[in-house]
């Protein structure tokens, strides 16, 4: 009886804790959405959370004025390409650093780690010249490759840490069954690492989705620009169209939230139980 009461009390406290943190998280989102439904003059004068008149048409206006259609498609392409690219490249490398033995393994891994720590200011200039030489400058492929590089070190670091923790029995079993190294990677390591892969997906998706400056410098052709450009169109040199900007920001936030929701399921499943003892 006492145990049950204590449990409920603890649960209640936990819920209170979670709810108060949630409130702080929701507040800016609520403000953003509420501002998107107001008028330009109302944004800073009308303090109410739900405006008397909800200008839903701001969303349609924002979509058209910002040219969201084209830019959204571009962003989706870049994000998907970069995420898939990183998952393959980084997990291959991380698996090798974790499980395979070869000369220079630790040194090369260390160099990758060092790259995480040394930001290169002004890397735009050499990247620009480099891409020019490779004839990849004003192209999607060039941008995608650059962005793959941006997230590479951190993703390898995350993946290697988790691969290190994986129990070796499953891999040994697969090897005895005649599986090649690549096969082990594909059939055993990757599925087991779903939770951390989900984190890698979300991390890189967010980075690419929100990136802007590199895209602006590399692309001349505005048809290649990502979503952020649409948002920039609402932030004039002197005058910011707040309601449209907030509507645009809300639209921009939605896909990432969806990606996160989808990826969440993999973090939840937590695969190892059952595979070892079951």
């Amino acid at each position, binding site marked *: 009886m006492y145990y049950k009461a204590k449990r409920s009390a603890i649960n209640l406290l936990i819920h209170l804790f979670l709810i108060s943190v949630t409130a702080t998280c929701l507040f800016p989102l609520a403000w953003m959405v509420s501002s998107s439904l107001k008028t*330009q*003059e109302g944004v*800073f*004068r009308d303090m109410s959370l739900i405006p008397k008149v909800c200008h839903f048409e701001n969303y349609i206006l924002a979509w058209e004025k910002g040219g969201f259609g084209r830019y959204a498609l571009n962003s989706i*392409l870049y994000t*998907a*390409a970069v995420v*898939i690219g990183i998952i*393959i490249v980084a997990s291959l490398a991380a698996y090798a650093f974790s499980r395979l033995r070869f000369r220079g393994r630790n040194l090369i891994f260390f160099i990758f780690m060092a790259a995480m720590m040394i930001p290169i200011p002004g890397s*735009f*200039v050499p990247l*620009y*010249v480099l891409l*020019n030489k490779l*004839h*990849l*400058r*004003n*192209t*999607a*492929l060039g941008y*995608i490759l650059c962005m793959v590089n941006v997230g590479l070190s951190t993703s390898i670091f995350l993946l290697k840490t988790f691969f290190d923790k994986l129990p070796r029995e499953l891999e040994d079993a697969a090897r005895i069954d005649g599986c090649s190294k690549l096969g082990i990677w*594909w059939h055993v390591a990757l*599925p087991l690492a*779903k939770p951390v892969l989900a984190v890698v997906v979300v991390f890189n998706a967010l980075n690419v989705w929100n990136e*802007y*400056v590199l895209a*602006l*410098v590399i692309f*001349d*052709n*505005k048809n*290649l620009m990502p979503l952020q450009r649409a948002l*920039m*169109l609402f*932030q*004039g*040199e*002197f*005058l*910011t169209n707040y309601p449209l900007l907030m509507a645009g920001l809300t639209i921009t936030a939605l896909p990432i939230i969806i990606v996160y929701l989808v990826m969440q399921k*993999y973090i939840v499943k937590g695969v190892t139980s059952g595979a070892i003892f079951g």
Partner: protein
Amino acid sequence: MFKVRKSFGLTQLLFIGFLISLAGCSRQPAVNPQEKATITVWHWMTDREPALQELARRYEEKSGVKVNFELYAPSDAYAQKVRTAAQGGSLPDIFSILGEKVDFASFIKAGYILDLTPYMEENNGEWKNEFFAKALAVNEFSPSNKYGVNAGFYGVPIDIMTIKMLYNKDLFRKLGLNPDMPPVTFTEFLEIGRKAKQAQIQGLVSGWGEAWMIGCLANNYAFNIMGETKVLATIRGEVPYTDPDWIKVLGLFKEMQDSGLLASGVVTMVNKTAEQLFANGRAVFAFNGSWCVNVYKAMNPNLEYAAMLPPAASDKFPVSIWGGAGSSFMVNAKSEKKEEAVKFLKWLTDLDQQAYLAQMTSNLPANKYALSKVSAILGQLAGDMERATHPNIWDISESPRVLEIFNKGIQSIIIGEKTPEQVAEETQRMKEKEMARKSG
């Protein structure tokens, strides 16, 4: 399940990516010899994009030459893109250098910018004379300039702007003051500040989180207290920043803070916030540039306000304001379509086009003949152009590191962390270091 879905999506996306990259490769500009020239212009002025596109259309109708305005915003990213493109050798036909005159000079010396002097001077200076002298001066290097650039005109202004004081007429009435008689002396200014503080109304708002705006007002008062000659002499290193006149300038900010004139939080305020506060009638004064007309109109069309000069702290020299420098365009010296580009710029700065731009975006035109076609408040802001000055028209500029110490030092004075004497000393020390570095 995950496996199957992933390999399906993977193949699809790689394929699409491959296709797009191919398409991207083939989208490299192909020269079609039959078409008339196309001029590419890079700009950052989001507010003016529709107006510029319309002007491009009109020009194509009139001359058959296609003008491609490409927008890259915000201005920081634009500047980055221009610099990177310069390094990579792919600047467009027309673009702009956003930044200090010393950067402008570097671009010219590196051979990226076309010398427009011959075009300006032909026909007895016909083109040159259309502009306000101060607007053109920003793009001009005089024979005595210290940047090492050959004298001449290297850019074309398409608008001007001034930075002045604005005051809210309604709040003036509320404080019992005559809305048509703004303060003329610094003492009056402080007095109004005290009154505002008592009435619990914010006094002066400005984007002083951005240090250059502080520098602007400080410079206005420096000209007022010691005159242009002495200020320029200080920059040349002949007069120290610890001179009592400079300490007086720094002291003005302390006085403003002590009297309650400055709005709280002014030291980290971004200009957009300052504009918001002033537009919503929450501050008596604003120190802002002529672009504010558009902003205030959008935020609060009923705002009753007027422009005035910064109230004089001394009667030895006139108060100056910063003005003249607006947006300018430069022509790529290495472009194959130089002549067409210059022709287009001539058309763009002509009376009709300038008037159109002014109407569409409430910016002050650079063409002085177009001034008769602008609204009253803009007229007030454009008046006093003869007092206008700007670092970009002086022959020499102060090192950015010295300016940073000076401007941020004023921030320290306002928050009560340092005294004017301390800031003066620190500025002078950095100045001496910079002078040693330049000569050493």
